[in-house]
């Protein structure tokens, strides 16, 4: 068992100058074979390993990570958590995730700082308002909290927003998900890692998968930079690099990898309590506990694995920001970075089987993967353990691209987040 994290253990350890803390997870040598190998030590992969161990009793599991855990999109996103999706299939999946988030700090004994400070989606045109109502009514009937705000209510919640009619795109209303908010992204990865490790999962960092061993259409393990590791089942959860892994296993995916950029301001005293998103003028912003404004917008148009994008994306996003929040003009950009997101034609993820037997894939989360972390891991663990898709994952199988049963969230997402 791991040490319990609590105020008491903190005080106790303080008295011994914090010499007594254990490592959060081990750095084991790879075993020759595992029941399940998870490729990718991001939030989704670690969550998958955790739930395999916790809910399915499968503990002989390795998480194989090319670099350091949580180093991909888990550590590069804008930390927004919400479940206000249009289509039933998406709403159910993301709500499953949001509910897991609501108890995650206690479940993991690790404070993931899930802060349900509310998430507001602005509407600026008649067309926006129609789409907004459609979405809110659907979300409500799916049993998920969502409400419509008038410009007056918006102004009251976020006084620094320009709600005047003089704006280029005046604010006509907003939807609000009060249970939405932000969480500490690194903590989610570390929390899952720590508890998965406690249940026996081997986290193999600095171990890159270089190939698959596939015999007669059945996967038998993975070649890595630390040698061959046998696996009865293998799950690919590598976000931006999904296409590369699929290529190694001999199949193609309907995904393209794109840069997604984000940035933060210098830290300032609290000025913005709510997450504010505007699909029309293309920006979303929240203020972190540290005081930094955290901003994002859309993806760069071209395929890339570079983790950098083009500057005009940033310029457009700051145009939008300073137009919505005219007082932000004098703040400064502190840090700017990019992630690699794998996008599907319908802006929905792929969870399920692959053409190779016992090889499973979880990818295509595009710009919205962080919020899904626990839910994604949970349904993927089920899918791997049972060899059949979890009920919530079923609509997201790869076959939908053949049948045409797409779950088109473009209209609903509008802007990356």
């Amino acid at each position, binding site marked *: 068992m791991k040490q319990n994290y*609590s105020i008491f253990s903190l005080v106790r350890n303080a008295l011994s100058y914090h010499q007594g803390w254990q490592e959060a997870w081990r750095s084991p040598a790879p075993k020759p074979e595992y029941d399940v190998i998870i490729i990718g030590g991001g939030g989704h992969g670690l969550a998958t390993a955790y739930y395999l161990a916790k809910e399915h009793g499968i503990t002989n599991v390795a998480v194989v990570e090319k670099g350091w855990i949580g180093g991909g999109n888990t550590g590069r996103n804008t930390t927004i958590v919400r479940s206000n999706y249009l289509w039933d299939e998406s709403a159910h999946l993301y709500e499953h995730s949001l509910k897991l988030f609501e108890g995650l700090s*206690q479940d993991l004994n690790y404070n993931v700082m899930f802060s349900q400070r509310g998430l507001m989606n602005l509407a600026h045109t008649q067309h926006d308002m129609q789409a907004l109502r459609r979405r809110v009514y659907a979300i409500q009937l799916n049993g998920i909290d969502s409400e419509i705000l008038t410009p007056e209510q918006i102004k009251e919640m976020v006084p620094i927003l320009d709600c005047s009619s003089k704006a*280029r795109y005046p604010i006509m209303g907003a939807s609000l998900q009060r249970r939405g908010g932000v969480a500490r992204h690194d903590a989610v990865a*570390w929390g899952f890692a720590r508890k998965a490790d406690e249940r026996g999962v081997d986290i193999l960092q600095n171990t890159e998968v270089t190939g698959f061993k596939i015999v007669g259409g059945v996967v038998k393990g993975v070649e890595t930079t630390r040698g061959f590791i046998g696996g009865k089942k293998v799950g690919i959860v590598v976000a931006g690099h999904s296409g590369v892994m699929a290529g190694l296993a001999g199949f193609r995916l309907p995904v393209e990898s794109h840069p997604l950029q984000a940035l933060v301001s*210098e830290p300032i005293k609290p000025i913005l309590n709510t997450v504010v998103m505007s699909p029309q003028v293309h920006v979303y912003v929240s203020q972190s*506990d540290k005081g930094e404004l955290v901003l994002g917008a859309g993806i760069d148009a071209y395929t890339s694995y570079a983790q950098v994008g*083009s500057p005009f994306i940033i310029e457009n996003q700051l*145009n939008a920001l300073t137009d919505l929040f005219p007082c932000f003009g004098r703040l400064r950009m502190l*840090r700017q970075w990019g992630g690699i997101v794998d996008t599907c034609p319908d802006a929905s993820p792929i969870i399920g089987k692959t053409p190779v037997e016992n090889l499973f894939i979880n990818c295509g989360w595009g710009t919205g993967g962080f919020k899904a972390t626990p839910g994604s891991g949970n349904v993927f663990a089920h899918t791997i353990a049972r060899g059949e898709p979890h009920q919530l994952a079923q609509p997201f199988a790869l076959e939908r691209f053949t049948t045409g049963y797409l779950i088109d969230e473009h209209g609903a997402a509008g802007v990356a987040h």
Partner: protein
Amino acid sequence: MSAQKNRVATGGRIDRSKPVRFSFDGKTYYGYQGDNLASALLANGVTLVGRSFKYHRPRGIVTAGPEEPNALVEIGTGAYREPNTRAPQVELYDGLVTQSQNRWPSLDFDIGAVNSVMSRFIPSGFYYKTFKWPKDGWLFYEKFIRRAAGLGTGSTETDPDRYDKVYGHCDVMVVGGGPAGLAAALAAGRAGARVVLADEQSELGGSLLSERDRTIDGKPVNEWVEAAKAELAGMPEVRVLTRTTAFAYLDANMLSLVERLTDHIGPTATGPRQRLWRIRAKEVILATGAIERPLVYSDNDRPGCMLASAARIYVNRYGTTPGQRVVIMTNNDTAYQTALDLTAAGVSVAAVVDLRANPTGGLPQAARAKGIEIIDNSAITQVKGNKQVREVEVQSLTSDATGVVGSARHIYCDTVLSSGGWQPTVHLHSQTRAKVVWDDGIQAFIPGPIMPGQNNRSISSARGVFGLDAALKEGHQAGAEAAAKFGFSNVTGNAPSAEAEPESQPLRSVWIVPSNVPVGQGGKHFVDYQNDVTAGDVKLAHREGYLSVEHLKRYTTMGMATDQGKTSNVNALAIMAGLKNVSIPEVGTTTFRPPYTPVTFGVFAGPDKGDYLDPIRKTALHSWHTDHGAPFECVGQWHRAWYYPKSGESMHDAVNREVKATRDSVGIFDASTLGKIDIQGPDAAWFLNMVYTNAWTKLEPGKCRYGFMCGEDGMVFDDGVTSRISENHFHMTTTTGGAPRVLSWLEEWHQCEWPDKQVYFTSVTEQWAVIALNGPNARKVLEKVVEGIDISEEAFPFMTWRDCKVAGVKTRIFRISFTGALSFELNIPPSYALQVWRALMDAGEEFNITPYGTEAMHVLRAEKGFVIVGQETDGTMTPQDLGFEWIIGKAKPDFIGRRSHLRSDTKRTDRKHLVGLLTENPTEVLPEGAQVVEHVKDKPPMTMIGHVTSSYWSPNAGRSIAMAVIKDGRNRMGQTVYLPYEGKVVAAKISKPTFLEDGAPANG
């Protein structure tokens, strides 16, 4: 004017004849022209300038440049307030108002300093381990954490300043105007290359501005700098940008720079405040210098602790000393220059504590000769004093430098300077995603090989080669070579030269300067000042397994502060390397992300604000709509007249009146925003066959046809009427929002898939203004003003077009209808649109001609069940779903999207269908977006089977009407369904999506 107690008698580049008044925390001080805020505060003896982020420890000024971690202040007031500004980079101007931040109630007495007392209980990452109880407790705890966090306070008023943006191009871009950069710019400029030289300081010269007695080519350095400036100013192809920071190195040799135009003048300045430069260079020379590392010693954050190089800058350039009695600790020779310069300025240097044994380099020897005491093989083990250094304790080092021995020697002082070696400023190099490599000789990262396509070279200190003469030589050579690459090989003049550097000895790396208690158990060894990360925190991260450099950074927040770890990253890496017992590069290197220093949001936005955020498109008739009181609706970039309220009328009243008048008599509508594409060429008809779902080859010239366009996925993505002008000439209309997308679509298919087809596409959206005349009396109105054609039903039937004159203006009229009423759509050259509109208004007066806006247009078309792509569709609807089975050309061989209609899910017959909805209560108007359920439950979740796409009050039907898409809707005609929303449930019957059976037919 109060005395400036730390101002030295003479010297420096300040103008002592020009006093400058400023305030800090409400108290007025004076500095001189040429001072920055940090030097002026130091001159006035103000050493406590801020509080740290987490522990609220008292902090002073540490550096003299952009790497400053501590001295962050708010400058300006009201709308001009700017938090987190680095004091050494604020040029002093008269009336400058500044204040300290992150303290309450005052800098001197800060309640938050209780965190410092509690610091033992709140090490790195403490928040991950606690605040988890009770389950919903986090929001409560978070409130207090948020309040305590953040640094300065942002203004809540609109930023009053303007910003500018500009693009630049050059052969050679030189970043850094120190000796190397100047020599490079001179060499390249003399050869005739187009050069841009950018430097972040207010004047060129870099390190030369703080030299005391060096010479170049036998002249004092200042004279050489002045001559260089003058020469560069005289070169027409050279642009010098001062107060300009190159903060990002982007793809393909593009640099982002920010030029601060008026920050040194303050709010009284006119013109833009800052300018964003995007400069595409053929070759980039990075002469960005190096940044000194502080030593990590116990309580190294007390106000009065400073970098040795910073003190040298303050005394030589600004004529001020950081204190009256100075102790210096160093692991290398360069700090001795500071000792010499301070001594020369009359400042008492109590001792130089050298971590090395028996230093015998040129500078230590010179210091000895000046009588400065050197305490070798020793370390400062304690710094006493809370808000100001009071005293240090010095002890001898053990042989491995991990501990100290012997008795402590107490030295009274008010200032402790340290030098831990120099880290080249490799940020821009690293931003190109090129690697940095570890250099054991200088114990620092230097640039590795450059990235392909990113033509740059780091020179001089920026690549770890130090010394003035080397800087001049490398600069000259780099400038000449870069220019020669582009054909400018005629470099005149030799490389400038300086006297040789004094002989020096290597530095000794002591990454944690030991004290007499174990690290983390007594005083604090700060690594990252601003975020309060100590050597003990690095140890904790190591103990807990956060081993990679990124985990270390994220767990401890090391290097994540506003200084981005410029003074702390290497120290932290080295400490982690020591703990892991591996070499420093094995721990990893941090990625340097843009920007180099924080950049104002406003300058990225530039002038593209307000109405310039996105272009506003207005029709040729816009002024008429404005004159007649119409509010406008945003549709894409267009502003469209929404409705025309008469005095006292509500929107509802106005729309009803417009709808009714149009259906009863005649309405007039500005349809100019409709997308229009001119299509010509022998293969035009073939092409339309491919992009529309229906057949076009047999359409005769003079006739019009409605069509759907699908994506290759089979889903509707635009619609419109296209007319055949002649055998090889068509006029296509698209939705208002879809016009650019459709044109790109046509071009893409033509150029990429069927390039051998002869067909040409031209956008003519703004070449035609469109006035739609609708209603039973439309013909009677038009008859009065039309010339040259017979507009009777027989001569000019529905779905045809004719050229004619209207009110004397050449007009093309289409007999097409989006209201289902008798309709004429007049296409007119835009400059004459107003004339024709007015003529029609006059002609229609006797028929009560009524202008109607987009809202009435929506109602009118819905009454007849016409769909709007983007409202009835959302990218998931096929033409079949919309009930347009007939529009699929069954006999047609191929069209885009055809194969997708045959997929198992797409060919289902129970997909969502477009239907009508009639509420049981005819006065109940459903909201668009309302969801349809078959069975109502007490509470959600409920299974939804569709949603309302359009919904209006129809004055002509005398009831509410709605269109909806509902699963298997066409097979549910007459079924009652329910729409739960906003706390109520409305019942409605599924109907056909047409609501006026008795209205005048379109071909009437």
